[in-house]
């Protein structure tokens, strides 16, 4: 066992409960070899705070539903190594459902995305 931990900040807001302002909540999670941002968020949801809203599906860089904004940059949370002092927010452009979860809807399959993934 190691006692190394990681601290980072997560955006929280519940529009369903009429919260108009978001806030950042700080969490501490244990470090392990290869830990990714999504692992840290899932650790929080399962062990620390069941109410955290976070979305993912495949865990292997295929579905892109785990997109988030870290320190201002859009990333796939299942692939980004978790680091101290990260600031984690939902992706912009989409309607916020809660915390880090947005509604992708029609926009998810934007032609831009399909192009960059498939066209030669």
């Amino acid at each position, binding site marked *: 066992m190691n006692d190394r931990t990681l601290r980072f900040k997560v955006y929280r807001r519940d529009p369903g409960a009429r919260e108009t302002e978001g806030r950042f909540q700080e969490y501490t999670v244990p470090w392990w070899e290869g830990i990714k941002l999504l692992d840290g968020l899932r650790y929080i949801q399962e062990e620390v705070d069941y109410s955290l*809203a976070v979305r993912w599906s495949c865990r292997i860089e295929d579905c892109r539903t785990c997109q988030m904004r870290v320190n201002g940059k859009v990333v796939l949370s299942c692939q980004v190594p978790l680091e101290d002092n990260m600031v984690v927010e939902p992706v912009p452009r989409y309607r916020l459902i*809660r915390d880090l979860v947005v509604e992708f809807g029609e926009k998810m399959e934007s032609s831009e995305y399909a192009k960059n993934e498939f066209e030669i």
Partner: protein
Amino acid sequence: MSSKTLHIVEADVIVVGSGGAGSEAAIHAKQNGAKVLILDRGTFGRSGATITAGHTCTAAVGDDDTPELHFRDTVIGGYCIADQRLVELYAREAPECLYELDGWGDGKTLRKNENGKFDLVWPPGGHSRKRSVHYGFLTGPRILWALRREIDRKRVPWMENILVTSLLVEGGRVAGVTGLDWKTGKFIVFKSKAVILAAGGFAGLWPSRLNTTAVECAGDVHGMAFEAGAEMVDMEFVQFIPAQVDPRITHINVTLTNFPAWRPNIREHGKFLNAEGMEFMGKYDDARRWNTTRDILALAIYNEVTAGRGSPHGGCYIDLTSVPKDVIDYEFNKFQGGKSIPKSYLRRCESVGFDLSREPMETGVKAHFTGGGLRTSVDMMSTIEGLYAAGETQGGVHGANRLGGNALTHVLTLGRVAGREAAAFASKTSHVSFPKKKVDAEHRRIVRWMENKNKTGESPVRIRQRMQEIMWQKVGILRNEKDLKAALDWFAEAKNERLQKARVGSSPRTFNLEWATAIILPHQLDTCMLVARAALERTESRGNHHRDDCQAIDNEHWLKNVYLWRTGTGSVSSRTEPVHVTTVDPKGVIDERPDITV
């Protein structure tokens, strides 16, 4: 709940799931005149296993191949207990289904050779012909892309973030489904004449770190169908697959064995090694080694690890370090599309600092694909009138072991049949009377978790975590009577006692993962029970089902399938029936092990 506040949506055909099976089914239902609606608990067209399917989709389109050969290989690969009527149907329809799919992507859905024909590669072990149609490393995403284009073109309506929570059945006929809209926290009733369950498999019943599938494949729909009275088949057959366990490599799950690793150069120079540096495949399938089937390879790795010859992260090693570098570059990069696909296997490895040509890859086993599911006839209707099953939710198609590449084919091809048949059924029937009582009861079951704020009580999340560990320890790759019985006791206690006393502490009504866990957990526990029960019934070892207390395959007594269903009193009943045979007599082929000649 008064009917005024009840939100009702009506369609002829409701399709649950937007993966390969659900998308095909919906397109074909619409094409055949039905008013159809797709529901998905995740992001539309981006959830489930189809998008993760890396490599291959099989069909008898090669010059030396026929549907009969594909059928035969599949039957033998499944240790002769697949339902031959279903295999025959899908092997026959597969080529046409893939040509149609290719057309939906303007002839560019799948890779072609210089003659404009499908570029064929060898599928993973057990196939006797070159019959994998592909799009490099992105076959699954590419197939979904083409399906999505057709869904948009045909204006097939869909709703995402809808967790389907129960099936409505009235007088033996399907009446629709209920769902929870995660975006709003609202309960919705979907009335329909037919329902197609295309909600994927149940590998998510095993712990996340030990399964390869998408999080939505949670196993709740199987328990839901069982509760509604549907008969289930082959629930004991869970495919555990060699999968990487190196914590650095989180961007690939299924390993090299899913890729063209059997090509001569790799076969010659590549090795499977245990932690002592010993090659071990000779012990398990000396003739085929690299080209063996997944069940054998998975058990071999598992045996080496449990015998104490495992790697630090609980696997063995696939060692390609002696394979010439240009071969590796071809197989895992250029073949997969080179520059046109930014994320080839090799590039993905490089991006995390892992060099295939210098380091052996740690490979363990994980729950991957589930062969069991709803029993259907050749029109994909289950034992409940109007309830159809398609894709991995359906059982009986692969028998005791699934050959690589056959899942996508099955899912797409039979999904199409389900769509056609459900539309035909809906055109001949009317809606059944609205099961108001059941809807009310389901609504209460769901909102109870948010209203009943006990001060104490365990979170359902804890119970689910424990359930997944039990599935690994007692209903995993190697089973026995004692473990299975202990697991069954645990599932019953968890459902009837622990879950009753549990508490959802978190209050948000939107995207509340704890609430969703509470809602689906009783169905998941039922599915766990079905797997353990079927595994207990089958007192032999065959394909993906291994028992250390009955190690041999027993062809005299077990060329049969196990069927399970719920009795009127709520308990589970079982029956075995001889396998459905059309043209391949199991007795004549049971010892064949198809191999390729390279």
